[in-house]
């Protein structure tokens, strides 16, 4: 199969050239951050590192890490490296204890993000001949805007569907002959099942490829989606803190995702010691934005457990590959593509006058995530009327929806019914077999 690239020179650059490029960018970036971000300057000063100490990519490990806690402390402008007048966009995700992550973009930042998504679309076989249906959510969530921009750059006819309204998705897909579908893997599976129910056979569906991300999915799920839709399904990775989808993308080999390392330098570290681990080691994935202007995070700890590989890829790309994330170093869950921290549930419960005795139960039924929260009720809350208890459940679910962006099913349960393991309540039961 002939390989196409969106930015061939970068995507197939030799290792030495790439390192040189990354080194040049890093030196400039560290200077930019040190001069413009007091928060990070303080971290560097505390560590006794000056911008002059960073002469190339090999010096990266001298720099301090950033974590989600830093984003929370610096919210909203503390990590901004450009005047607001130079920023043209924000994107956002829910954060721990109610503080959102707000990422800022200059025109150039949006541009490089869209380039990354365009590389992903071309790697999935996309070209200006294609009709690209973007069924990720549009808005603060990065999925829709990112792939939408990438699709424009490739020159695809873009269908900005956003998520939901499956009947309409199917109508546009079949009437306008969409050839590429971009959405979460669970939504792709759902669209596939719905098409099947409507009597469509894989060969009747115009799609040829799908770019699916924002939540964990398995090889079995990939096979299922590929079969029901009659397509090749490609994984895509990203996080709002770094830019959004397109930080890494899959190629025709489907054996891991190429990281756009000219923009985002990846390291694997030991999550306990912070020590950088050699290629092939399993550890925590850390990203450094080499080009971002407005929100350039250096050594941002993603909490994703991952492995990097520089093995030669049959697609011709030389960009380093990351495996599917194998877990988290924190307790974050990804449910229906949305990041959920148990601490957020706890915050809602305390705000609403409940004790933080709860259990989150996540499962995947027919390729869709189910999200249940059991909450122990106390004697002050207990009433003998069913309607009042149902109303309490509804109001808790609404408060959680406001905090998280997704709707849980809340169940009030009697005290001491939540599973305890060695006396400690089990907060999360994840029944999905994703890894």
């Amino acid at each position, binding site marked *: 199969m002939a390989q196409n690239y969106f930015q061939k020179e970068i995507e197939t650059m030799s290792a030495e050239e790439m390192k040189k490029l990354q080194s040049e960018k890093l030196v400039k970036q560290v200077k930019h951050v040190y001069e413009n971000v007091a928060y990070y300057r303080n971290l560097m000063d505390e560590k006794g590192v000056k911008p002059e100490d960073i002469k190339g990519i090999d010096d990266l490990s001298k720099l301090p890490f950033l974590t989600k806690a830093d984003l929370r402390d610096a919210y909203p402008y503390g990590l901004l490296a450009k005047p607001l007048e130079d920023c043209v966009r924000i994107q956002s995700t829910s954060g721990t204890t109610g503080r959102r992550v707000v990422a800022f973009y200059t025109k150039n930042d949006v541009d490089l993000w869209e380039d990354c998504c365009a590389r992903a679309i071309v790697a999935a076989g996309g070209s200006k001949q294609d009709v690209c249906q973007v069924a990720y959510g549009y808005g603060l969530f990065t999925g829709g805007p990112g792939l939408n921009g990438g699709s424009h750059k490739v020159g695809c006819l873009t269908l900005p569907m956003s998520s939901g309204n499956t009947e309409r998705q199917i109508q546009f897909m079949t009437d306008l002959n969409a050839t590429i579908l971009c959405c979460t893997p669970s939504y792709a599976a759902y669209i596939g099942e719905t098409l099947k129910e409507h009597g469509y056979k894989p060969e009747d569906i115009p799609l040829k490829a799908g770019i699916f991300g924002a939540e964990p999915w398995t090889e079995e799920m990939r096979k299922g989606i590929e079969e029901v839709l009659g397509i090749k399904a490609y994984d895509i990775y990203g996080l709002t803190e770094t830019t959004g989808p397109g930080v890494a993308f899959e190629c025709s080999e489907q054996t891991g995702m190429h990281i756009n390392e000219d923009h985002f330098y990846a390291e694997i570290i030991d999550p306990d010691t912070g020590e950088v681990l050699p290629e092939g080691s399993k550890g925590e994935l850390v990203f450094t934005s080499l080009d971002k202007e407005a929100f350039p995070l250096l050594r941002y700890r993603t909490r994703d457990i991952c492995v990097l590989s520089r093995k030669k890829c049959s697609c011709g790309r030389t960009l380093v590959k990351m495996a599917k994330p194998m877990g988290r170093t924190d307790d974050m869950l990804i449910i229906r593509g949305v990041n959920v921290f148990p601490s957020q549930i706890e915050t809602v419960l305390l705000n609403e006058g409940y004790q933080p005795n709860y259990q989150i139960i996540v499962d995947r039924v027919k390729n869709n995530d189910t999200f249940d929260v059991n909450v122990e*009720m*106390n*004697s002050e809350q*207990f*009433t*003998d*009327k*069913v309607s009042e*208890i*149902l109303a309490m459940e509804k109001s808790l679910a609404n408060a959680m929806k406001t905090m998280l962006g997704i709707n849980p099913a809340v*169940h*009030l*349960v*009697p*005290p*001491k*019914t939540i599973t305890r393991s060695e006396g400690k309540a089990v907060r999360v039961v994840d029944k999905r077999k994703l890894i």
Partner: protein
Amino acid sequence: MAIKQLTVFIQNKKGTVASVTETLSKNNINLRALSIAETQDFGILRMVVNDTVSAEKILTENGYLIKTIDVVGVKIGDEPGQLTSALNVLDYAGINVEYLYAFMARTEKHAYVVLRIEESEEAECVLAKAGFKLITDADISKL
């Protein structure tokens, strides 16, 4: 005047009702009336027992989430139309009944109705005025 109803919050799971009634029977508590409201997830057990104070203590000790509330107990004749006329009395007075359940007396030709009403004192007044006999906890323990 009102009688006490013991209310227990349980999960809608196999065996939960039995575990409550077993706890009570082991401690010699006798049930006079029992009603369950259930949803897919949970159930609310509503009971009138011969000794509410002890039952409350025992269930609390056993970790149950309980609440004791006042309900209206009315004695009615065991013949067609008696419940309707009691309910009509409340209806005319603009009093809303949240829920109700009934039980039969063992010896007399009577039935008893337990009514959950927000304005229970007002309800008792109008029922008494209309000639209905209200029952008390003392009556219940003698049943």
